[in-house]
């Protein structure tokens, strides 16, 4: 059963890599040769078979190993998973959404049987077989958000909606691009986005918040966000920045292809039925520069985007130290040919 899932690491010896199929379905985030923040929100509707948009929750070849990495993070730092007391109903909403999606879309791996509040969940890849009572925390080994969060790829946060604001009052965040759940818990939409440059003045957050406050049940939306990471490291948290920060100084012309990764977050947002909270999924995809340039259009475009990226974004995303080395390497893959619009591989 488990041979569909790769055995690999996201720390220490970093054995992670993408299969050719996984490269082909990579959600390349740049639809033109430059990049700037925008309110890039679209309906989270079904995409082509095999694409990362085929199902609301995407499970891929990295599933089992990513879940193992999450377990390590949570063992070392329980504060990566937190929920304020009033979020219990939203936690159950979240568990229901994930279990029903995974069981419906991947019946070969997951199954969910419900009889009233008596639920039976089977997760074959992780060897889990759990009967529990929906709504009764004492029947699960963890609180619902942590329970299902340990079995689903992607980070998740849950936002309470009150006083015309969204409040990040719960989350399970182990693979973040340098922000701290422990620090941000309890903040509102404007506060937790405080450190982002330029976008506040562009009114990106005013418009995004207004949109989200009106998010409707059964009409989830999505957007892509991206950054770059040295080594295929999932846990690029500020908590551990003193451990991974120095990796940024290790990039050389010889190792760019293997060390420098584009890290794309497929972010989706759902209104939750009982709690009226909003679920935010941050499903991360890593791709090495060497893998990325196997798609000629992506190689060209990555070079051009990185070359023209505003300095504020370069600094904010932490790319400053290795940008020039990466640009030099990528320039070999940019012959100046025109690129077509959209992120697709052509």
């Amino acid at each position, binding site marked *: 059963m488990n041979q569909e899932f790769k055995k690999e690491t996201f720390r220490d010896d970093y054995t992670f890599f993408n299969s050719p199929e996984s490269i082909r379905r990579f959600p390349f985030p740049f639809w033109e040769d430059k990049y700037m923040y925008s309110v890039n929100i679209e309906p989270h509707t079904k995409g082509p078979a095999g694409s990362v948009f085929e199902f609301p929750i995407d499970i891929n070849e990295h599933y089992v190993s990513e879940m193992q990495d999450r377990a390590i993070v949570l063992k070392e730092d329980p504060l990566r998973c937190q929920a304020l007391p009033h979020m219990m109903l939203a936690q159950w909403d979240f568990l229901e959404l994930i279990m029903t999606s995974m069981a419906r879309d991947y019946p070969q791996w997951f199954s969910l049987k419900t009889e009233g509040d008596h639920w039976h969940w089977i997760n074959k890849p992780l060897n889990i077989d759990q009967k529990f009572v929906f709504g009764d925390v004492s029947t699960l080994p963890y609180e619902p958000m942590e329970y299902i969060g340990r079995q689903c790829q992607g980070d998740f946060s849950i936002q309470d909606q009150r006083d015309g604001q969204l409040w990040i009052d719960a989350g399970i965040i182990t693979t973040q691009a340098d922000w701290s759940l*422990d620090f941000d818990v*309890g903040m509102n939409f404007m*506060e937790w986005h*405080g*450190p982002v440059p330029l976008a506040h003045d562009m009114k990106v957050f005013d418009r995004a918040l207004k949109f989200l406050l009106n998010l409707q049940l059964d009409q989830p939306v999505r957007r892509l966000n991206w950054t770059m990471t040295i080594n295929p490291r999932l846990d690029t948290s500020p*908590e*551990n920045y003193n451990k991974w920060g120095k990796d*940024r100084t290790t990039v050389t012309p010889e190792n760019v292809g293997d060390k420098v990764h584009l890290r794309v977050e497929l972010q989706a947002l759902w209104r939750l039925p009982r709690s009226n909270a909003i679920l935010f999924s941050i499903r991360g995809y890593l791709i090495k520069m060497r893998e990325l340039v196997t798609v000629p259009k992506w190689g060209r475009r990555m070079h051009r985007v990185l070359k023209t990226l505003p300095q504020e974004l370069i600094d904010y995303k932490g790319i400053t130290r290795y940008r020039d080395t990466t640009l030099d390497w990528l320039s070999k893959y940019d012959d100046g040919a025109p690129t077509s619009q959209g992120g697709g591989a052509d």
Partner: protein
Amino acid sequence: MLIEGIKSRPQYPGLVADPHANHHVFAADGDGAQAIIDLFNRHGAQIKGRVTIVYAETDANSADYTTRLKQLPVEFVHALPTIVTAIRRLQGVLNVARMGTRIYAAGTETLIGLAVQLSQELGMDPQAVLTEHRGTLARRVQCVHCKGFTENVKTNIVKCAHCGTNLLVRDHYSKRLAAFQGVCVDAEIPGELPEIVEVFK
């Protein structure tokens, strides 16, 4: 002036009297006492019912302030030696507070932050705390690595009082923690520190 444009940082619009409250609980430190005195001069007539002041005598002239606070129409002035002891006393006062209590906080960002945090922990609406900033801009900083707090930080870079990491003091502020975020400043090249300057005076 506080630095503007930091979105996560709270605003301190200044004290105003709540004419509907029947118990007014003030927390203050240092020059924050003057904000209370000013409020009574401005709106004293609208402050009806019980008045309780918890005051941290953190400055050289604090004893004078305590004397002046006691001359206001107050039920009691709790004078405490430090912010930490004042917040502890505030908790005692609020634990037995009834409906109709209004909380005011005046003074340093640390005092205000801790009073707001306390009110939130006690299940009150933190946004209902009336605030006025007076005195130092020194920051309370949480180390994102060991989670320890370092008090009274005046410089852009500070050594964490707990784990010793050299922290860059960010502008990111958490009301829940009543602290700014400190992140290892020399993680990328250990030992390479920018110039250390006093910026929060």
